[in-house]
């Protein structure tokens, strides 16, 4: 078994129109820039995939990564907790124009819904959002005299994530706070595609050091020296750039 694949093109080849795609990263840390840009390349060449639902904590910044996916027209819906980071103008303009849908989810509920999706838990109760507008329409139940809101699992057709090291079995390690949502997204997606800074043979990662076990991973593509979204945005990068 070897989950390593050779190219970014291959890595994003089978995401269909209308797919729900979880994308790792919190702000710029952990954003799989090269996978996202490969998806844009495919869209610009073929017109597909489009009408994607993207799940991420944010809704893109500047003109790269998720912002570029939106700007280039691949995205019809965002599920996120904080679509208002530094320079979110691409999302903001589309949203205010009614061209993109938004499902706003508290950050901890977003994380727990994704984890539940990966763990086979169809619903759970949380105190978060009780008595607020974000709980409207959701079942409420009392446990031990305290009210809680019922939330449903969140799953995806694909997860695109970034890790530090990946082995042939798909075992992954991450780099510092770039870990964030990626381990739980890997659990919750039917197919998880990972860009890693270093791809190694089975046995190349200490079993104690594995953060995401390979069972949650389907494809690993090596991208040495990956781009960092924050650095790109500080350089005011656009994707695609002037051709």
């Amino acid at each position, binding site marked *: *078994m070897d989950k390593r694949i050779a190219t970014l093109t291959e890595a994003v080849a089978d995401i269909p129109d209308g797919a729900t795609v979880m994308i790792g990263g919190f702000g710029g840390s952990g954003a799989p820039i090269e996978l996202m840009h490969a998806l844009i390349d495919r869209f610009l060449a073929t017109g597909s995939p489009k009408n994607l639902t993207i799940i991420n904590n944010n809704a893109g910044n500047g003109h790269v990564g998720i912002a570029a996916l939106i700007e280039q027209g691949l995205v019809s819906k965002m599920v996120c907790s904080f679509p208002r980071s530094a320079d979110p103008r691409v999302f903001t303009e589309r949203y205010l124009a009614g061209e993109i849908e938004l499902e706003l989810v508290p950050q901890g509920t977003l994380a727990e819904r994704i*984890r539940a*999706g*990966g*763990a*086979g*838990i169809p619903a759970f109760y949380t105190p978060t959002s009780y008595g607020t507008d974000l709980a409207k329409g959701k079942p409420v139940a009392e446990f031990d005299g305290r009210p809680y809101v019922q939330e449903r699992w969140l799953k995806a057709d694909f997860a695109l994530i970034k890790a530090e090291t990946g*082995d*042939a*079995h798909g*075992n992954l390690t991450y780099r510092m706070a770039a870990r964030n949502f990626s381990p739980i997204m890997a*659990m919750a997606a039917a197919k998880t595609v990972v860009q890693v800074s270093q791809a190694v*043979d*089975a*046995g190349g*990662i200490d*079993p*104690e050091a*594995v953060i995401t*076990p*390979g*069972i*949650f991973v389907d494809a690993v593509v090596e991208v040495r020296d990956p781009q960092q979204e924050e650095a790109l945005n500080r350089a005011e990068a656009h994707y695609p750039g002037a051709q």
Partner: protein
Amino acid sequence: MTTKLTNAQIAWRAAQDITDGAYVNLGIGFPEMVAKFQPEGREAIFHTENGVLGFGQAPAAGEEDWDLINAGKKAITLKPGAAFFHHADSFAMVRGGHLDVAILGAYEVAETGDLANWSTGPKGVPAVGGAMDLVHGAKRVAVITDHVTKDGKPKLVERCSLPLTGVGCVTRVYTSLAVVDIENGHFVLREKLAALSLEDIQAQTGAKLHLDGQPADLIVPEL
């Protein structure tokens, strides 16, 4: 001519259906034997409930490290690409549908797919372990078992009489006589020992065996 497979032969037959790269959980006891018979050129990744993925065979006697065990509390070894994780993550793998196949033992299997394999009734100390989770988690839940009990009673039945492990969960049964699928609430006979007639098998089965074409011969090596 063979009239009944040994446990090793049942395990061998079950192992033939495990594809390369499959993630597999083998129940405690008899099902653990399936690991011995992986076909040449295929590599399955074995999962154990207590937090190990990618383990290999037992170590030599005296070489055991008792911090490295499987769910049956037997010493194991690691293969390259192994990973450790905690119990909640381990059952996230199970319940979340990440295992390709779980192979379990059975007291009874019903034509509805119901499985009874954890309790023989109210006497003694009840113990369930991970079986109730496994039957609802793996993409494919298979059973390996003798076709009948030691007393000669059918283990494949219309409805289970013992306490259930899970409802409608089993899709294939490998027995000492046959390979039987469960489809739409029916047993479908896929393979049988050539030495036995359909009537012979039916006589030892507690529910109607349906056919979907002629059953193939169940052929296994001497082991």
